[in-house]
């Protein structure tokens, strides 16, 4: 495990180096100034999604769900559609980025808390019910977006469409300081909670018997998940299956059930996949925005594989 961790760390550093310094050219200061914020954004989003997924899976005690699969990405698209519908194209485009970001984060955090809180608050352990609820909510949000989209004009719809795909590189540099503080805070808190998360994973009765303040920790964990998911979605757009791929790989690579190992490994895997993938697609293949599609496709296949194999734990 430690050797793998070291190897992956080296790979991460190397791909960060490649991403930053490869093919700089004479206007290197300018180019670096463009690349550095993107890199930092990818690292933050990767780590945020990794931790959010791992913590979420511990709370709902299965390995096939991610917060996004529970209807969250559809909620984001609905929000975008609603904003375009209410403000019009010019109003939407004219929104101050920080205002839009702030509003999105707040609304999505509250929505996530309501969603996950009602689903998991009573200790629901019925995975099938959770998946089904997520799917239904997703359909519900999506059909409501479609309904809104019918009302607004076709041009406005195109704007919504563009906002509905994740892009790891359209990160707004001005948002990075706030995002950074929030994400790093939530991630550090999760790492600190690692031993307690291990106990949480044993299920409510055992966790309480061992003296864990179970319900309070679940609430705190859900707040962490909600904040991380909201921030990362507001930053890069909706991503559903990436977290799943990351958590699966982290479990496979560590072979441990301890969060003190799982969380760092998941962060490493996620950031490496994003940075190395982006370097490959952007620099080698010259494809700017295909990474999210490829990652989602791979993640989707992995989700299917998990379901078919019945590997829900």
């Amino acid at each position, binding site marked *: 495990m430690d050797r793998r961790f070291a190897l992956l760390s080296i790979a991460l550093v190397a791909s960060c180096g490649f991403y930053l310094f490869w093919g700089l050219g004479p206007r290197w200061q300018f180019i670096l100034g463009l690349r550095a914020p993107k890199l930092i954004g990818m690292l933050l989003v990767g780590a945020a999604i990794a931790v959010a997924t791992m913590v979420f899976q*511990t709370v709902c*005690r*299965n390995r096939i769900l991610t917060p996004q699969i529970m209807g969250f990405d559809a909620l984001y698209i609905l929000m975008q559609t609603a904003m375009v519908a209410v403000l019009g194209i010019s109003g939407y485009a004219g929104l101050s980025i920080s205002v839009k970001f702030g509003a999105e984060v707040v609304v999505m955090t509250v929505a996530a808390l309501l969603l996950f809180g009602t689903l998991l608050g009573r200790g629901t*352990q019925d995975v099938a019910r959770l998946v089904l609820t997520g799917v239904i909510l997703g359909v519900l949000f999506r059909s409501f977006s479609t309904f809104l989209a019918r009302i607004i004009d076709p041009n406005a719809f195109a704007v919504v469409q563009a906002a509905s795909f994740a892009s790891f590189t359209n990160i707004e540099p001005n948002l990075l300081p706030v995002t950074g503080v929030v994400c790093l805070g939530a991630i550090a808190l999760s790492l600190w909670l*690692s*031993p*307690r998360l*291990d*106990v*949480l*994973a*044993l*299920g*409510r*009765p*055992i966790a*309480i*018997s*061992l*003296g*864990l*303040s179970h319900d309070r920790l679940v609430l705190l964990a859900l707040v962490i998940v909600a904040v991380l998911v909201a921030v990362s979605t507001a930053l890069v757009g909706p991503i559903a299956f990436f977290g799943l791929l990351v958590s699966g790989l982290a479990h496979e690579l560590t072979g441990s*059930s301890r969060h003190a190992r799982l969380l760092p490994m998941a962060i490493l895997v996620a950031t490496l996949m994003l940075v190395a993938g982006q370097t490959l697609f952007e620099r080698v293949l010259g494809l700017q925005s295909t990474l999210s599609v490829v990652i989602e496709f791979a993640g989707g296949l992995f989700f299917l594989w998990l379901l078919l194999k019945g590997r829900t*734990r």
Partner: protein
Amino acid sequence: MICVKNLSHSIGKTSVLQDISLEIPKGKVTALVGPNGAGKSTLLSLIGRLMPLQTGRISIDGSDIAQTPTRELARRMAILSQTNSLGSRLRVRELVGFGRWPHHQGRPTHEDEQLVMQALDALDLTALGNRFLEELSGGQRQRAFIAMALAQGADWLLLDEPLAALDMAFARRIMAQLVALREAGRSIVVVVHDINHAAAWADHVIALKEGRIAAEGPPETVCTSQVLGDIFDMELRVTQIEGKPLVLHHL
């Protein structure tokens, strides 16, 4: 002593426990018996603060369980539920190791490891220590959970049907072990379905029926054909062997 006062509990609209008041003696093995659905598990989970109290009060050795911090309670009592499902994939040794968590909060000492080894040994699990739980038989898994509760080293041990899924050799061994723990000064509350285990090993028997206490006392007074026949609504013959009641429930 565990002291339960005017405890009532309902789930949805059905009333599960009705105005129960009882005392469970310290330093004794107490058996909780009764038909399916009588409310034994509910009572035990309420004592073990796994569910919030609705009406009534429960205190353990003088401290009200609703007022005492849960971490403090974990050092005083260990409770094992009737069904356990884990969210993580654990080895037997790791699961039993969690039993020491109330004492070390994630940083096990050498002493903790010793106690885990002892608990594994007590349930004959040493050879299976490195197996994953899902690679065990039902009874072996049950033993692993019991070992975890033992490792917790609490004064009070509350076990909900620990004998379910165990073969007769292990069932007897567990009961004997509970008696040995009592000798070492612990107090035990155990839900058992095989009434003869209660009759043979328990010091005190509490029988529940339809959410009320139907009988309470030493095995000799509770395990009679009259009392048990009423509780379980069946004809029963009871004989004696070595001074202990023997219920011929299968005939």
